[in-house]
């Protein structure tokens, strides 16, 4: 079978997120219930979750979740990890057998920190050092794929319906203050474990419903900065764009949204002069990072979550708020099923980010 990256077929999908602004932690059962309500939006070719705050005992270490096709791939990858990182803990990720999830790769988890000597030799900060290592493994070590690499967060994904993926990974055993979920209906790629959502790079994770028509423009630009798009999926390129704009260029989340879902020139013209100046600057400077075509995404990051639609709002997104909890989903039913009573229920406008952060946090992903 052709895998992700070898073939591109022209997505329905479902996304959902739950976030506690006070940072209170809850297990993965509610997010499974939410995403499973939208079962018909996916077709069993991919499901996944991201949980934030799930590894408090190891919160200062990068948690690598890795798929291996073979023990040979595992040995090669571990050798590479050993040369660059101090591995504090490693184990198989616990899973549960179900006949609805089959053909699983080897799935391992490593808590790591860059070796101080290697890090100082590299003259990079630890985030950049780690990012480069992840990209290196994913492009240079055949049969190994790092699908999660953040601190105090983790991605769990597979080929299957999301509710089965949640059951498979025993998400009831993890507690986080933020969860996102995805049910996949792949239209451009065949559906492989690595290609399921969320797609993550360090603590940034993206779940995405849509079909990006600017994919190749975005890819060519972002690859100039050392990123390598290996999967041909829209979601991968969005994740790299977010990392580039937020971390490397230091933009705020709002500014990042104004780049990737830039308003039309005709809309910019109607804004007050100062705002016009900023919007024009961002659109001109990062014109190759404008994402066109329909999308709705949830961006998870340490300390918060952002929802964003394409500027034409060609995909649905609704938000419910109740006390300190925020619920974000493709459909209202996915929220009401876990939170029937809400203080506020609304839809963000196309291109207007909805950003929620832990109490006292800034609207900035760093």
């Amino acid at each position, binding site marked *: 079978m052709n895998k992700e990256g070898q073939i591109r077929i022209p997505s329905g999908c479902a996304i959902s997120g739950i976030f506690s602004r006070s940072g209170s932690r809850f297990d993965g059962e509610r997010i499974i219930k939410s995403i499973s309500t939208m079962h*018909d939006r996916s077709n069993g070719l991919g499901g996944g979750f991201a949980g934030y705050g799930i590894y408090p005992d190891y919160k200062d270490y990068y948690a690598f979740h890795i798929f291996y096709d073979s023990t040979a791939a595992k040995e090669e990858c571990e050798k590479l990890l050993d040369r660059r990182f101090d591995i504090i803990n490693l184990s198989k990720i616990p899973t549960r057998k179900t006949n609805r999830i089959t053909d699983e790769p080897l799935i391992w988890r490593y808590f790591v920190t860059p070796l101080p000597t290697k890090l100082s030799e590299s003259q990079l900060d630890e985030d950049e050092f780690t990012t480069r290592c992840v990209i290196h493994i994913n492009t240079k070590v055949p049969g190994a794929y790092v699908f999660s690499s953040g601190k105090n967060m983790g991605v769990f994904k597979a080929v299957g319906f999301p509710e089965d993926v949640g059951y498979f990974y025993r998400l009831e055993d993890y507690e986080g203050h933020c969860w996102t979920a995805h049910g996949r209906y792949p239209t451009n790629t065949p559906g492989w474990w690595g290609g399921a959502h969320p797609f993550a790079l360090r603590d940034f994770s993206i779940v995405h419903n849509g079909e990006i028509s600017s994919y190749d423009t975005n890819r060519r630009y972002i690859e100039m900065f050392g990123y390598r798009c290996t999967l041909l999926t829209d979601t991968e390129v969005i994740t790299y764009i977010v990392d580039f704009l937020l971390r490397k260029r230091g933009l705020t989340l709002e500014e990042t949204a104004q780049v990737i879902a830039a308003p*039309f020139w005709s*809309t910019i013209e109607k804004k007050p002069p100062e705002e016009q100046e900023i919007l024009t600057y961002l659109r001109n400077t990062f014109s190759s990072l404008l994402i066109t075509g329909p999308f709705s995404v949830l961006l998870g990051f340490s300390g918060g979550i952002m929802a964003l639609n394409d500027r034409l*709002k060609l995909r*649905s997104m609704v938000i419910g708020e109740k006390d300190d909890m925020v619920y974000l989903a493709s459909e*209202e*039913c996915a929220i009401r099923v876990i939170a029937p009573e809400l203080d506020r229920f609304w839809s963000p406008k196309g291109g207007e980010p909805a950003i929620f952060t832990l109490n006292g946090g800034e609207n900035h992903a760093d």
Partner: protein
Amino acid sequence: MNIDAFAFDFQELNKEIKSSGQEELNIDNCMGQRYIGCGLSRGSLRIRGVPGNALGAYLNGADITVHGNAQDSVGDTMNEGKISIHGSCGDTPGYAMRGGKIFIRGNAGYRAGIHMKSYRDKCPVMVIGGSAGSFLGEYQAGGRIIVLGLGSDQPCPVGYFCGTGMHGGKIFLRCGQLPASLPDQVNAKLADDVDLQEIEEDIRQFCAEFDLDRETILDHPFHVLTPNTKNPYRQLYVHC
């Protein structure tokens, strides 16, 4: 007859509705089931909970009432009948509808009435009580869209790009101020008595449906938007 929808997926629920043979059905505990009442020609459905996308798609004469919100694509391509939403609805209500009436007490999302059309004796009508999102009446080819702006604090209760691509039908906006920008291909003017006569019956029905005062609603300026056939479209989405 009552149906508890919670345990049903969308196919089972629709089969249950169609095989019931009942004129009046109450459907409780809806949780996102799609296509409820699709193609239904007669009878009435009263829905509680959250009906899924494409509620009443291809509706052909039946009467649907939702005591709460509805999701996307209410009345997609409907032909005849009535859908009343006591809450708000998601994007694209009335998508390509060509007959019947949709009444939404609250707000509508993006692209309400996109590609609505009339056909021979058919003239679809959609009344939105609150405000509508961007692209209201995009590519409208016929029928009437009425936005009342009740409870809206905006000077005009619609978003950007209202009437883009409009080439038939009418949009009535209950507001003293026009949308910030309208395409050159759309004419706009204050509605006069002759214009208002056209929507009198729609407003009466809307008010009866949701127990609202008709006089209060009509005692307010309306604008009416129609396509300008003398100014055809060229390169609509280029360089924007």
